[in-house]
């Protein structure tokens, strides 16, 4: 699988050489965390939760997931640019199998998402969260699964799109709502029944719950149990990576081969 490794390495090299991408993926979620956290700090109370937990601490796991979501989106949206620039055509007509392309893109994007999400864990001591070795290992494992899940999902979407505008539309209509309804922003316990139902079927809910469990010393009876959360998150990751591979295998040349007939084709 040299082709997959080469593609993954290229993703990382490109990322490092475009500092604006690092800023773009890390800063907005951090800014949201600081502003929203400060805004809600005085008024937020989780019913039945241990007292003393501020909104900053509540919002933190969700912020980490948002960083991973942003990083995955940026990493997979590059597929559209690669195709427009012509880089991807060169890979498509190479002997490398389409699955290597999928594997390389998912691997590269996941590494970037994981590094960026993991960078936020450096804030853990400053937050005064009681997190030790086992909890940290659990958190990182959850980040790995979420990185693969969201990168796989992003790639499956991006592969069939011809423009980055299309991706932005899907991002606003689908990816962000998925995050809003994951328990990242507000707990399910206080939400109306229909919203709770939506949150229960949202696979991201379980990732956020697993991370919340990992990042705190107290138990959370209001959340899905840890084994369930981990199992659902792992299934989410496998399903999304599989979906991206299926989308690429079904249409190895991407939308352009279909689009040729509409425009000028020479």
């Amino acid at each position, binding site marked *: 699988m040299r082709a997959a490794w*080469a593609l993954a390495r*290229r993703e990382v090299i490109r990322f490092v050489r475009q500092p604006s991408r690092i800023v773009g993926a890390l800063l907005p979620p951090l800014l949201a965390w600081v502003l929203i956290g400060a805004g809600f700090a005085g008024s937020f109370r989780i019913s039945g939760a241990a007292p003393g937990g501020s909104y900053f601490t509540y919002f933190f796991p969700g912020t980490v997931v948002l960083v991973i979501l942003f990083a995955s989106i940026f990493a997979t949206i590059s597929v559209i640019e690669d195709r427009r620039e012509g880089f991807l055509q*060169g890979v498509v*007509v190479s002997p*490398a199998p389409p699955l290597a392309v999928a594997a390389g893109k998912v691997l590269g994007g996941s590494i970037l998402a994981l590094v960026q999400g993991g960078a936020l864990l450096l804030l853990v001591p400053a937050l005064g969260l009681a997190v030790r070795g086992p909890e940290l290992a659990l958190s990182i494992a959850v980040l790995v699964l979420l990185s693969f899940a969201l990168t796989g999902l992003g790639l499956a979407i991006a592969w069939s799109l011809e423009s980055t505008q299309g991706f932005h539309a899907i991002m606003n209509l689908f990816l962000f709502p998925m995050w809003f309804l994951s328990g990242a922003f507000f707990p399910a316990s206080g939400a109306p029944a229909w919203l709770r139902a939506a949150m229960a079927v949202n696979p991201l809910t379980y990732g956020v719950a697993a991370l919340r469990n990992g990042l705190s010393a107290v138990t959370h009876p209001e959340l899905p149990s840890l084994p369930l959360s981990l199992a659902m998150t792992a299934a989410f990751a496998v399903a999304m990576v599989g979906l991206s591979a299926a989308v690429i295998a079904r249409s190895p040349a991407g939308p352009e081969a279909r689009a040729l*007939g*509409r425009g000028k*084709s020479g």
Partner: protein
Amino acid sequence: MADARSGPAVAVLGLSRTYGDRLALDSVSLEVRPGEVFALLGPNGGGKTTLFRILATFLPPSSGTFRIDGLSPADGLGAIRRRLGVVFQSPGLDRKLTVRENLLFHAEIYSLPRREAARRAGELLERFGLADRAADRVEALSGGLARRAEIAKALLHGPRVLLLDEPATGLDPLARRTLRSALADVARADGATVLLTTHLFEEAEAADRIAILDRGRLVAEGSPEALRREVGGDVLVLTTDGPDDAARLAADLRERFGPGAGTVSTLEATVRVERPGGHELIAPLVAAFPGRFRSATLGSPSLEDVFVDRTGHRFDEEAA
């Protein structure tokens, strides 16, 4: 290189391609010989890019088949792809990577032995005048250099056939000339076959043989010289000061010399006269119309004349 196969490097066998109900390629058959530079010439919408994409294994044909170095898609795309070097019209280099990184990335994608790939990359960069730019990012290169880097990349795995889609587009005249000699060199030095598409007569003129595609059909195939000869006669071009002058001169010319003048037409500020023995007309013209034209050029028919002769319409008319 020591391939004993004597068949064509590229055989196109009744290829058709439709997009919806539009027929972009209409049962085209042609052969490209090993070691030649072959140009697919045609206007936009003529079908040459569609043919290029099918041969590059980027797009499946609707019907018909093709062979690259004797192998058809039924033998497996992987085998064909290893024998092909492909240069798309949009740059296939990663602009954020250096020239050398791009070549080594290509080596990974094609699973070339690393040491051999590094050696060959060095050779190709040297040969294409890129050795001192190897560590520069592609985004820092000029259009001509980037195109050469791309060709070097496409040659890294030693393809038997190099396919290029409109390689001259966007290059200045000097870079075009460099490109032409580089491609001729690929055919002679590497023994590879070069198949390129172009909508520029000048580029097609430099090829060993050409095929002209119009509205999805093959309208001519042969060496530029042979195709021009088939049109017959000479072309006398009189350059005037403007389209109006040209039109008046053409009318007067027809009146004065009658049908014996040959085929008289105007193209912008020029009057074109096609006839056998074009030189016989020059002295009478100069005597009859002093000062009415600035220059008279006698030549054999151009590829544009071939195109007009075979299709009955001008080259720049949109086919769609």
